[in-house]
């Protein structure tokens, strides 16, 4: 596989107590000339899904460039289950670190669901990281 991964944590499903204040935090740290990525709720707005975060989103930090998305936020549609998939494009970026954590209502990290660094050895590749989300 042309995209190399370095896995600290990886799981395909997560269950969070939304009514108790738990939430997910998606964090992406790209390296390279121009990141292209899409974090999509693939169950909403079919067939293309609803974008939760992309390279056009306002970064949380510029040095290093970091994008952060909390889910759910008040305007988010929350059903009992959905799927959040991150699509990473390596056209003009060589590396992405993708972290997903479950946080409590006090923004304390409860557990890390995904923590993976993806490195492309050649340009113009893509990688997808999917997470099935259950909310209660």
């Amino acid at each position: 596989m042309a995209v190399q991964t370095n896995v600290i944590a990886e799981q395909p499903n997560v269950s969070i107590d939304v009514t108790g204040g738990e939430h997910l935090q998606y964090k992406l740290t790209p390296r390279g000339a121009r990141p292209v990525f899409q974090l999509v709720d693939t169950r909403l707005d079919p067939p293309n899904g609803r974008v939760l975060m992309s390279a056009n989103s306002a970064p949380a930090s510029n040095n290093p460039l970091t994008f952060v998305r909390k889910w759910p936020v008040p305007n988010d549609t929350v059903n009992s289950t959905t799927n959040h998939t991150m699509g990473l494009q390596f056209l003009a970026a060589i590396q992405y670190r993708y972290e997903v954590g479950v946080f409590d209502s006090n923004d304390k990290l409860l557990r890390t669901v995904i923590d993976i660094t993806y490195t492309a050895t050649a340009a113009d590749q893509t990688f997808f990281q999917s997470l099935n989300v259950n909310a209660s």
Partner: protein
Amino acid sequence: MKTRILTSLLLMFCLGNSIFAQEGKLNSDKLREQIRSVETIRVDGKSAVVQNAHKRVLLALYEDLRAALESDLQDLRSIREAAGVDRGQVSRDLDAQISATQKEQEQVVARIQGLSSGSGTDNTAGNGVSENDTNGSSRSERTTRSSTRSGNLSSTRNNGSSEPVNGNASRTDTFANNGVSGAINATTTTATPQAAGANPSTSINASLNQAIQAKIEQRDAGKQTETPSTSSNSTSLVDTSSAGDLVNVGLNLAGLTGATKDNSTDSNSVSVTTSAYALYAGFLGADPLNPGFYNRNAAWRRLSFTLGYDDEKDTVTNVSTQAKIFGVKYLIINKRDPTSARNDKYFRIISNDLQTRTTAFGNLFEKVIYHVSTIKAFRDKILIPQFRAYLQVKRQEAAQSVVASDPERLARIDDLLLRVNSGAVFLLDQNGVQPAGPLAEVRSAARTATWKKEEADFWEQIGRDYFGTDYRNKLKTAVGNSVVDEIDAFVEKQLNDANVFQRLQESSVAREAIENIRKAPQFSLYVLTKQRQAGVDEYTGEAIFDYGLANRVNLTLNGNFLYKNSPFVGGDTRAGKFSGQFRFQVTPEKLVGRNPLFFFVSGNGEALSGRKPIFQAQAKLSVPLLNGLDLPFSLTYANRNVQNKKDFVKFQFAFAIDTARILQALTGK
């Protein structure tokens, strides 16, 4: 007796540690001290209980240390960001500290992995139902409870409970609670999420990516890694318009003298090209690959420098001399820069296409994951029995304590216990995925298609235990090869669906957008000089135009003026030179890390004052050997040689090394 004392000491340590944990949990210094203290306790030759407890305490501490180091890293990065990029030594010190902390974190992860892999059998023996009892509280309870580190350990003392929970159920339940409370993850025999550190992903997700990896077109191979064409030993007749961002090295080997009629080929040349951008980033101590820095400093990437030498053997005296090469290249037009406004519209297209593909992947991923829950062997041997055991533990908890926010919990679990016996749990909708419903139904005792909270929580654990890292071996071990084979067959069937695969692939519009970026014109000026200790110095001014004509076909045109400064009065010469090259990409980019195979056809004409024009034609094949290492062969015909005025054919080969790519491959950065 000694065993009891040792175990008691470890338990006391953990009790104290759990109190301390809240304030010291993210203090890496304190955690290192604790780890040292525990590691000084010798347990060799002690009972399995003691060794298990020792291992679990260590694992818990290492987990905390990993989290503490992560927190340290975040703090350091914040400080680094606040300090700005122009703090000189301070910035460099901070970078060094960040790097050291990252390294330590990697070592800690490796240690966790080692402890986890070694803790399995101990844990199987040590875990019992009461461990679930201790940890099996609801999520809302758990988040408000103090650390269960001591609880986990004490639970290992309660083996042999009459609760009919099998080992697997016990492990998964404990795992979830550990995740929330920050207690000892070592109590699981399956890999913790952190236990796969420094490893390539071997999950179902990665496997699916491998299966559907879209094969898009070539990377930009226009960056020159060979010696400049002014070097007589270069396998290039033309210079391309951009240099590598970091440092490129072209190392020509001696020409094959036996295959040529030219006597001047027994020589070598080396050149190094670096961009001002790389130097500037190095000077500031900034990460040249930080997109923000990259965008802010596009102008620095227009300028690049070349240093090198050319070994030349005099055909008359047979004495070798070394000519030094100095060059400066400036990109006047660079429409291929990803940060250029011209390319924004193409990136929008690529981004939109990525959204479609991402959704298609997510849909497929769901189908595959949920399909596993329907495979009979998996369902009968893992899902249903473990879930039944899980529910029994949860029922016990629910009977003991009522959670105000979840009043129907006991009734809901009772209903699930009824359903689990008939297998009516984890039911899927008509699309073969988990049905989505309103949140209220998740905690309701009423039967609905929506999965209940216990199903969702348990499904997370199943995913972690069986679908994550090394899922193939885990499933094979648990239920045999048939499940893995069935998953593979299901994936293949899905990918054979033209509609599914079409949405997973890069669209033609997106491919065109990528090509539009890659084929955009570049125009640069290149000034190069070759300085000799004795003899004629050369000065070259060159204009380079690079343009993509079609897919896989690139045109490069050079026009240059050559001035040779002779030490003899009246010996100076001036020349005009024009050259052009077509580059054909023979193979698509399929091989990991390597450049595609290229074929070049080029020619040049050179008119030197007072001499007859020289014309050369060249065919060249660039063979990719490794990532960052190419071997170009060239066959050149010239109508005359400068020295003996005869026509000649020259065969050459060289190694072209792209250090940035090699470093990237070696360091993974």
